[in-house]
């Protein structure tokens, strides 16, 4: 989605290193010579920064003020999908989790679990994704780890990242501060990432390819907090489980509820079609480039204006409001004037028979 030309140019600048092996073997995770060859072949150089360059067991870094920390694992299949790859997703996902805490992402760790037999070319392409995404987000990979498991015991690449960020002064992201009257905003179209993945995984073809909207959200979050401080009360990126699950979690056991207006929900036509076709509710489809925020009503319009001025936020819209009427519940007001409860998703969404 983001700066596609820049991404391609960047990839061209970093050709696959010359190696005397084409596939990952168990030896690449042994910690011995092969591990060394793999990392020294270009990984360290690619991700180079003063912390990582020390090639120590861990990294020692300076930080100031309050810190936020998050950890996340990425097991997506396929590892390359329209609009991104697992490497970019790992960086964006972790950066976004920090951003949702009200922090500026600074450092990331990067741990790979590779499956024996993975093509080095694929590994390198994922690394390029990591590097490109890290550059875009202004974060440094300061320590990491590589393990290899037997063929069949992994799924090409699993990535775990831990992220550390510095809290933005004035940030006070806390669901308990939400009050009736506050406005609920999403920063972009929902369900795009999940449907992009599903259409590749299931071999579904639509008129054009649905591309994942995977992107970093930290700039948008930072701008909101700097401009509106404590009036930004809640930030969350509705990844797995989708917007529906995030809304349900947000109001659960709280003295307030949420009213969502179906005709305000932004969704790409093609994505909506794919959901209809498969009998899947877009409210429960994963997102990777969208966040939900709850803000004080008097700044809602200014928040939308601000988000629209930032890359990735031009589709932001108010989708509902906080109410005291049905505490603990998120209610969807359907486009035709009906109401229904938004509930937690049970298990995985499965396509319906008819």
């Amino acid at each position, binding site marked *: 989605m983001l700066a596609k030309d820049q991404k391609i140019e960047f990839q061209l600048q970093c050709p696959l290193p010359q190696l005397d092996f084409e596939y990952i073997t168990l030896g690449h995770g042994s910690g011995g010579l092969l591990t060394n060859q793999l990392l020294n072949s270009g990984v360290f150089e690619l991700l180079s920064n003063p912390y990582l360059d020390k090639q120590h067991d861990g990294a020692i870094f300076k930080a100031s003020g309050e810190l936020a920390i998050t950890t996340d694992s990425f097991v997506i299949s396929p590892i390359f999908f329209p609009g991104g790859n697992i490497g970019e997703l790992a960086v964006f996902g972790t950066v976004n989790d920090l951003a949702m805490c009200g922090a500026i992402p600074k450092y990331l760790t990067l741990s790979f679990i590779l499956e024996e037999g993975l093509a080095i070319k694929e590994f390198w392409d994922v690394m390029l994704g990591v590097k490109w995404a890290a550059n875009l987000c202004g974060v440094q990979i300061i320590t990491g780890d590589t393990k290899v498991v037997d063929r069949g015991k992994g799924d090409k690449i699993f990535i775990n990242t831990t992220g550390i960020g510095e809290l933005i002064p004035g940030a006070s992201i806390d669901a308990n501060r939400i009050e009736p009257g506050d406005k609920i905003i999403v920063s972009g179209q929902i369900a795009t990432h999940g449907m992009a993945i599903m259409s590749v995984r299931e071999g579904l073809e639509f008129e054009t390819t649905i591309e994942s909207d995977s992107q970093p959200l930290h700039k948008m979050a930072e701008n909101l907090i700097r401009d509106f401080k404590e009036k930004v009360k809640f930030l969350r990126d509705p990844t797995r489980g989708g917007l529906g699950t995030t809304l349900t979690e947000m109001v659960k056991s709280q003295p307030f509820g949420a009213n969502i207006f179906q005709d305000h929900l932004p969704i790409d036509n093609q994505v909506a079609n794919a959901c209809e076709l498969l009998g899947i509710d877009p409210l429960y489809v994963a997102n990777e480039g969208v966040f939900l925020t709850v803000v004080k009503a008097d700044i809602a319009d200014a928040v939308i204006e601000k988000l629209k001025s930032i890359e990735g936020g031009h589709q932001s819209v108010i989708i509902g409001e906080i109410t005291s009427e049905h505490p603990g519940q998120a209610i969807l007001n359907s486009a035709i004037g009906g109401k229904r409860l938004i509930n937690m998703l049970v298990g995985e969404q499965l396509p319906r*028979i008819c």
Partner: protein
Amino acid sequence: MKHLAEYRNPELVEKYLAEIKKVVSKPWSIMEVCGGQTHSLVKHGIVRLLPDEINMIHGPGCPVCVTPLSLIDKAVHLALNHNVTLCSFGDMLRVPGSTKSLLQAKAEGADIRILYSPLEAVTIATENPDLEVVFFAVGFETTAPANALSVMRAAELGLDNYSILTSHVLVPPAMEAVLNDPDCRIDAFLAAGHVCTIMGISEYYPIIEKYQVPIVVTGFEPVDLLHGILLAVNQLERGEAKLENQYTRIVRPEGNLNAKNVIEKAFEIHDREWRGIGNISHSGYELRDAFSSYNANIKYQIDIPKAEESSICIAGDVLKGIKKPYQCSAFGKECTPQSPQGAPMVSSEGACAAYYHFSNINQPELSQD
């Protein structure tokens, strides 16, 4: 979506609702036969918009819900113990059998695959001659043509590693079974639009004749459903009982002749057990003898104990419209979509699951019709 939006147009919805309110003068119970219609009614919040006089009864037309427990057990058994590659539509996977669901069997290592068409299963069988592929052929008349085609294709290709585990059910006999129940309180039906797309509408004339009940062939979008309800109420208020087709943009009176032809070639009508209702005579399809080598029930000798349904479940009463899901003592307590005690809680198209997902079990104002 452009065309879909037309059938979700708030102004048209408003217009039909106003008309229904104007016409209705006494209480009527209308059954929407198909689970897809139930899903849409509840998902769009239509049930709550209707006047109090209209009582929507959610029919047995959810194929996942009415697939007998014993058949799910068979599928699980085949996948776990006969080393077959079991292919299925997605929403069958979560339905619990008496000990486990297909999803659990998959987690235990069974080769279970979610497909969108049985023809994909034939492709898997063709490309992998060492695999024994079984397609779990459930559904109403709507999925029967594709399942029939898959068997005919396999026969053409001379495959001996493909078969189907059939649980095909038919709509008209189920409507009759509901009407024959002494407690039945259904005044009119919204017939399932997609089933009529395949089968046409002629099957309903004898039912109307025998039971004097209005039947309106209806689509699935909010405007369709409200239009169908309006047509049914109009008939009821005038004391009429006739067949009307609301879904004319899709349903032709004769149905889809090619599809019917394919069904006729591969299947014959048999008695069938319906989960939550029991055995209904002549209510399902079974493969014809000519295709018996593709019948998983014959190909694999599956000897497993007969499964027992939960004793607290009132699915029969719910499916016949005698009780609402929330009138069941187990609803939302012992019985949830995570641990369904009976048929209508298993798929989101089942009446109980639709109520569970989309209405509020604690606050009656969202649960009431």
